[in-house]
């Protein structure tokens, strides 16, 4: 009985992590589609992420319910739910960014296109690593730190690209309107937020892992 329930929660956690990973890959593609002007694909991917987000929410609620009702030593319970909640923020952020792209429709400048695509790829990589770190947290805590190092690395890279975009937008003379320069800065910050969220999860995971060491 106990182990059957454990098995179903394990499967749910795995599904949840898979969704986060999928969402980050779709996010990267969606940004590329937007800057390539492929709006049909962009909209489709935005819908996919939205579906993944709501599915993940319900999986997380399901896990929470089972953990609190019948499973798990209180010590680990809070940490597991804390981890899942922070990971949920990652998928929320990717959905939010795409929604803003579709509403505000920022202008595509060829001078910035590659930078934005690179920024989204790096941000997605940070999410990929935080998902691997979370998997390791559940099965093999000794492997967590090496993934966390990679999360921090990608976050730092994302910061650098963000600054690069801002400098190009404000220093260059290809954008005339100040409002459009600010718009570019805003979207660079938004995409970079995904890496920031991953780093927030990484910081929490670092503590949870120390707590798990017997």
């Amino acid at each position: 009985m106990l182990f059957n329930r454990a098995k179903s929660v394990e499967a749910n956690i795995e599904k949840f992590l898979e969704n986060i990973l999928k969402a980050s890959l779709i996010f990267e593609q969606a940004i590329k589609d937007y800057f390539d002007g492929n709006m049909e694909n962009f909209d489709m991917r935005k819908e996919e992420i939205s579906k993944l987000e709501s599915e993940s929410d319900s999986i997380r609620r399901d896990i929470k319910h089972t953990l609190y009702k019948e499973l798990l030593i209180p010590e680990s319970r809070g940490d597991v739910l804390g981890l899942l909640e922070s990971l949920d923020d990652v998928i929320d952020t990717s959905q939010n960014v795409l929604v803003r792209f579709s509403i505000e429709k920022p202008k595509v400048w060829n001078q910035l296109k590659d930078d934005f695509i690179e920024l989204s790829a790096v941000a997605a990589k940070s999410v990929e690593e935080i998902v691997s770190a979370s998997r390791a947290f559940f099965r093999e805590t000794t492997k967590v730190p090496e993934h966390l190092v990679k999360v921090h690395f990608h976050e730092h890279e994302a910061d650098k690209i963000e600054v690069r975009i801002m400098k190009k937008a404000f220093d260059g003379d290809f954008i005339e309107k100040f409002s459009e320069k600010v718009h570019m800065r805003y979207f660079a910050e938004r995409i970079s937020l995904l890496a920031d969220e991953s780093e927030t999860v990484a910081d929490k995971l670092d503590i949870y892992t120390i707590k798990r060491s017997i």
Partner: protein
Amino acid sequence: MITILIFLSSGLFLGWSLGANDAANVWGTAVGTRMIKFKSAALICSVFVILGAVISGAGASHTLGKLGAINELAGAFTVALSAALSVFWMTKAALPVSTSQAVVGAIIGWNLFSQSAIDMKALTKVMGTWVFSPVLSAIVAAILYFAVLALLKVWKIHLIRLDGITRVALLAAGAFGSYSLGANNIANVMGVFVESASELFTSFNIGSVFTLTGVQQLFFLGGAAIAVGVYTYSKRVMMTVGSGIYHLSPITAFVVVLASSIVLFLFASKGLKEFLVSNNLPSFPLVPVSSSQSIVGAVIGVGLAKGGRNLNLKVLGRISLGWVATPLIAAVVAFVALFIVQNVFGQIVF
């Protein structure tokens, strides 16, 4: 029968205080951190303490018998009462105390009062065991810690399943710990009465399969007193242990409880001793040891295995103080109490 029960009352009180305090050594972490419900812990603890006392309690009691064959019920009553009072006072004065050490001290007090020769061989064996048992607990705990660490590395069990397994393991270790506690420490509670009271209980058969000897019935009563202590008072002690003194992770708690239970069992099981002797392996003297010191030893062992950062010299000092102070105080209290019971109440104490 009523007279017997009145005389046994001091032993039953010792049993109660053992249940109230020492059950927390076994179940404290699990209950204090709400991994196991108090109700489940109390039930399993009571059943296994009684089983341990009745099935394996004779060995350690025998050693106490050698130390002082208290042949009068009033004498046994006074000795147990003196031990109980010493434990009570020392606990109130916040001094480290162990029931085992108090009982041995009180028996020595009886020996001095009755001018019986003290079996120095038995006494050295008992006192040597006190020093040895926490050390052995530390060693066993360190070995178990490394073994568990290695297994976890190989098995890579999912956290969710690992928690389920830990819970079951804690229940099993708790049951074993309770059995060992009953087997080893019933000698403290009822050991002094074996000589004078066991013949007053006649053997009886249960369904013509089991026979309960007089001594076993005595131990059953003692076990029941421990169980009452567990139910009435141990919860708050468990909560203190779980939330304060030793904050252990669930898996470390399992290692600590298992290590100290193994040590208590080693010093209690006649069967194991015979097995070890027949296989030419080193065996252990059957002596009541302190479950608190055994647990502290195990915690220190795990601390050392983790790199020694947790080693608290103050704790070690307190344990050593307990080895000397408790038996001395109990011996003095017993001597004075025997004098009063003999001369004021006119009872025969030896």
